[in-house]
């Protein structure tokens, strides 16, 4: 079974790759077919993932682990949402119901986390020099402050010279980001090759 999984995974990878580089009709058809299968599998994995989430939190509740109250909240919220959305499907108001769930719970909670994130990032920046006092850290902070000056709104309009500062900083940040992304792309390439040719097999228990 493991061997079959490996052979199928390697063959799929090679077919999709060949279909991308050499678009013969047969390869293209196979590529589309395999991609469609992957989409169906992805949808199934979400269901399995939700089952995993419920199972982990049920275990927390049954063993009385720390934070099991949150697990109760999660499971009850999940059941209520499922029931509400199932009712909405049958009553033909799914779009409205989805918007209500998003606007009432998801958006406010995520907005609150976003607000906390802003404070966390400021706090992290303040503590950076205490954690690691070197040239790169100073440059990092100076760049961040200059970007803030260039883009922040003030009651008196834009800061004088904001465009020049942004343009000057963009030269370095864009160059740096491209350098990092080239390195990452090479890493992605080699990781992809290891997976396609079955050297790394995070599937099938190998």
């Amino acid at each position, binding site marked *: 079974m493991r061997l079959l999984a490996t052979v199928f995974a390697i063959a799929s990878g090679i077919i999709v790759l060949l279909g991308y580089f050499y678009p013969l009709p047969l390869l293209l058809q196979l590529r589309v077919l395999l991609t469609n299968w992957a989409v169906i599998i992805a949808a199934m994995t979400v269901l399995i993932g939700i089952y995993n989430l419920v199972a982990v939190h049920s275990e927390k509740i049954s063993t009385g682990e720390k934070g099991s109250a*949150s697990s109760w909240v999660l499971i009850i919220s999940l059941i209520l949402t499922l029931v509400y959305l199932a009712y909405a499907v049958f009553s033909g108001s799914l779009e409205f119901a989805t918007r209500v769930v998003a606007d009432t719970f998801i958006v406010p909670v995520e907005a609150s986390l976003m607000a906390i994130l802003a404070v966390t990032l400021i706090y992290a920046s303040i503590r950076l020099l205490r954690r690691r006092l070197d040239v790169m850290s100073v440059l990092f902070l100076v760049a961040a402050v200059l970007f803030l000056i260039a883009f922040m709104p003030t009651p008196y309009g834009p800061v004088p010279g904001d465009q020049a500062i942004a343009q000057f900083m963009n030269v370095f940040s864009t160059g740096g980001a491209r350098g990092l992304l080239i390195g990452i792309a090479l890493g992605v390439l080699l990781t992809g090759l290891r997976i396609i040719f079955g050297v790394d097999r995070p599937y099938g228990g190998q």
Partner: protein
Amino acid sequence: MIALAWPLLISIGLLLLALILLIGLTLLHSKIPTALRQIDAFDRLTRSVGLAVENGTRLHISLGRGSLFTTRGASALAGLAMLRKLTERTSLSDRPPVVTTGDASLAILSQDTLQSGYRAAGAEDQYRYSTGRLTGLTPFAYAAGTIPVTKDEQVSTNVFLGDFGSESALMVDAAERDNSTLIAASDNISAQSVFYATSQDPLIGEELFAAGAYVGAGPVHEASLTVQDILRWLIILAIVIGSGLKFLGVF
């Protein structure tokens, strides 16, 4: 025959070159061993893994939320290669490592990888499916689900390796408040800047993909690093020559 455009030919050439170099360097590994430069974060990780086993504390590995159906998934796959080795090393610990992800397919793969790690260490009966968890499907849900793991489960070392966004700051902050060791790397530029500001020894750029080689995942991982270096030099050369030719008005 289908005529291929020259950018596509270059891509194919790069791919084939990478493949040939990868195979060649892996076969030559015993004759030409790879010299790995010192990366503080990986040294710290090795120490922390040993300490976690001795202290009976837990290792928490978060693989991000990069979908395997996009290029973002590659960073998670690099994380899985490291996870396999770390699982083998910590399989005999009182508290097994726990893995959190923000993508369902990645959660399943992490469970598979954990199981294979235990099997390789001859301790498959120690494996529990609940140690590979999906904590949320949106960035903030993932962060909110991961924070309790870092705080409530006696974690001494947090490894964040994969595709994250700026929400990673919340997870890193929670880990830091508990004074746990933090190793963090991402393929995402925003997350990299967050990790640079928040962790002691940040991993920058492609260092994320070196994780496997540094935890002893095998000669192919070490050969991969060498191939990356060779290709990087070729790209630098191409950029310099291209810039020169453009400056001279050749094209």
